[in-house]
């Protein structure tokens, strides 16, 4: 399957108009960046809307209602409101670090979207280290949290920042271990490869069946990375007021807020890619094409397939987001020592065991476990 190549088509189109291919390539370059920012932002905004609506429904409320149909304009209203709000920097705060903190968090989250594929060729950069890159980049975020917690000159912020650092470090490892087991089966770290390796038999070939333990570890660790209840200790409202974001307002706060929901969206996409077959439909779409005797090179079919794939991966991601939101409004928050216990004494050993088990299975059944 070759699929569509947007870059090639774009450059060909402009070359056809008599523009130098090199110039066309330069013109192409900002487009993926724009796309990544747009996708991440829209995803995050949709997640905030879902958060409001689902929490409202779970609590027998209505939620946003008057801002647009079904309150759909409420995320936009949020953004506008935060944009025009005054950005207060506390008098005794370190102004540079204070502003830098949310920026680092924001960038680290949005950068990870570079390697998220929405289709075989609907990916900004198919780097060979894909999933590893995501994990590496996302561990920059705690530095920003710690920075903002420390520079706010507020004790609640400091505690929140420290908690964020401790939590991120503890949960990076099980997250990486779970992803590693998947990478081991796929014989590669590239996100596209990981998905393609789950393509043969539709829903049956998804990694979730071969990696059930890893799936659970990844979900728990991803929730902890996103700092959502039951693991939202860094910003635990009842304890630390708002944790590291206590002193933030206006645009800086928006960066935190946006980054946290973008991070949720990112985690959801990662779950979809690693365990739920990415853009693959529950049935093998190639076979359908064969049945309907459509040639794979048919451009219309390619567009339809790409569109279906992107829809499917978004559906999978939002199913996870729904689960995360419902969980958030169901369970209480764990305590810091219990959080660390869970991370180090439960998820880490299980993650290691899962990795060993995967390796053993891979040696024993090379056919089923990507030998």
């Amino acid at each position: 399957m070759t699929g569509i190549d947007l870059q090639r088509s774009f450059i060909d189109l402009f070359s056809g108009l008599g523009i130098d291919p090199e110039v066309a390539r330069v013109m192409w370059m900002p487009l993926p960046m724009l796309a990544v920012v747009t996708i991440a932002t829209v995803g995050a905004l949709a997640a905030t809307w879902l958060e409001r609506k689902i929490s409202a429904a779970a609590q027998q409320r209505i939620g946003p209602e008057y801002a647009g149909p079904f309150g759909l304009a409420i995320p936009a209203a949020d953004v506008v409101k935060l944009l025009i709000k005054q950005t207060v920097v506390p008098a005794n705060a370190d102004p540079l670090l204070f502003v830098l903190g949310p920026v680092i968090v924001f960038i680290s989250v949005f950068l990870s979207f570079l390697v998220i594929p929405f289709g075989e060729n609907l990916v900004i950069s198919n780097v060979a280290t894909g999933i590893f890159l995501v994990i590496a980049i996302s561990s920059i975020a705690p530095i920003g949290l710690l920075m903002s917690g420390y520079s706010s000159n507020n004790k609640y912020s400091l505690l929140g920042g420290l908690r964020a650092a401790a939590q991120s470090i503890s949960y990076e490892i099980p997250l990486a271990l779970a992803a590693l087991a998947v990478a081991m089966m796929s014989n590669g770290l590239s996100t596209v490869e990981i998905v393609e390796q789950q393509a043969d038999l539709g829903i049956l070939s998804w990694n979730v069946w071969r990696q059930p333990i890893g799936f659970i570890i990844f979900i728990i660790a991803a929730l902890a990375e996103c700092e959502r209840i039951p693991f939202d200790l860094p910003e635990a409202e009842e304890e630390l007021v708002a944790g590291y974001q206590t002193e933030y307002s206006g645009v800086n706060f928006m960066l935190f807020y946006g980054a946290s929901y973008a991070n949720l969206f990112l985690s959801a996409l990662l779950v979809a890619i690693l365990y739920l077959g990415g853009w693959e439909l529950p049935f093998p779409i190639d076979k359908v094409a064969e049945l309907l005797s459509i040639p794979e090179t048919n451009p219309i079919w390619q567009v339809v397939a790409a569109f279906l794939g992107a829809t499917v991966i978004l559906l999978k991601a939002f199913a996870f987001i729904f689960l995360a939101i419902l969980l958030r409004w169901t369970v209480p928050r764990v305590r810091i020592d219990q959080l660390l216990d869970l991370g180090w004494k439960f998820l880490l050993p299980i993650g290691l065991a899962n990795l060993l088990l995967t390796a053993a299975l891979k040696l024993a059944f090379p056919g089923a476990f990507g030998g």
Partner: protein
Amino acid sequence: MVMIETKAERMVINMGPHHPSMHGVLRLIVTLDGENIVDCEPVLGYLHRSMEKIAENRTIVQYLPYVTRWDYLATMFTEAITVNAPEKLADVPVPRRASYIRMMMLELSRIASHLLWLGTFIADIGAQTPFFYVFREREMIYDLFEAATGMRMMHNYFRIGGVAADLPYGWLDKCEDYCKYQLEKIDEYERLITNNPIFRKRVEGVGKISREDAINWGLSGPMLRASGVKWDLRKVDHYELYDELDWEVQWATEGDCLARYLVRVGEMRQSCKMILQAIKQIPGGSYENLEAQRVLAGPKSEWNSLDYQFISKKPSPTFKIPAGEHYVRVEAPKGELGIYLIGENNVFPWRWKIRPPGFINLQVLPQLVRGMKIADIMAILGSVDIIMGEVDR
């Protein structure tokens, strides 16, 4: 062996009076060693409104609207104790019907108070949703209160010798509906909360008070009962007509936050059952029935006797509190709510000392949180169930 010194400098953190989980305006000065609490010092008085002094130059009728501002979540109890104190001193009889109405109101108020406690307690440890569920039910109680008393929170309903007005038409029917509904909902809360592993981990074994400690600290109410003391003033003092109802004292022996949670949830169930019984047993039945019987049996019938009145005699605005002094108490949702009253045959009381349960229960907090994690402050404080309005008065 060389030990690496890891002791960090202690951090003094000031929680409150404006903090999301300080239940109003409590202020805690917490000394932290990392996440561990070394010391905790509550600072009170931010909501002090001289409630005792105000009572000394108000008649009882004038003072009644004030009392619902002590514990504004269990309003009926403050009114009950305010009328009980002079009632007992002056030996004013209370008709049986009035007493039944009072019991129903008190138990509804107890449910309302426990419901709100449940919501804030669970919210304090991080789950926000039950808060909305309990408000849904509490709203119904307040609807019932509004129909009977005219206000949702500041009822001004109890009077010396009875209550201000009889129950409105159809009130008992709706109250019955509500109690049955509430019993179902309590099961639902339990499904959501009780066995949740995270909830269990947060409350089990946290904030343990031994039986001796609980008695020595003068705790009362669910705090005391959760520590293994079967002490309920409704059984001990036999006030109102609680003896005519079939109910059990809820108690537990563990003395931790979970035990206090279970005791309170059990009390809500008991209260529902008590109200359902009271609806069946109230002399004269519903108000519409009472009126019909009065019409049917004529003016001189037993339906007009004292037992079927909602008040024995309307208190005059110049009701004199007889000379003498005594202590009256009721079992409020938070514990023993008492009044020490000294009268000197004047319309004003000479002394009006309030014994608020929240204030006495709160003093145990620093001992409980010492050595715990910072998040345990919220769980323990939540389980103590304080209302700053009555703590500071």
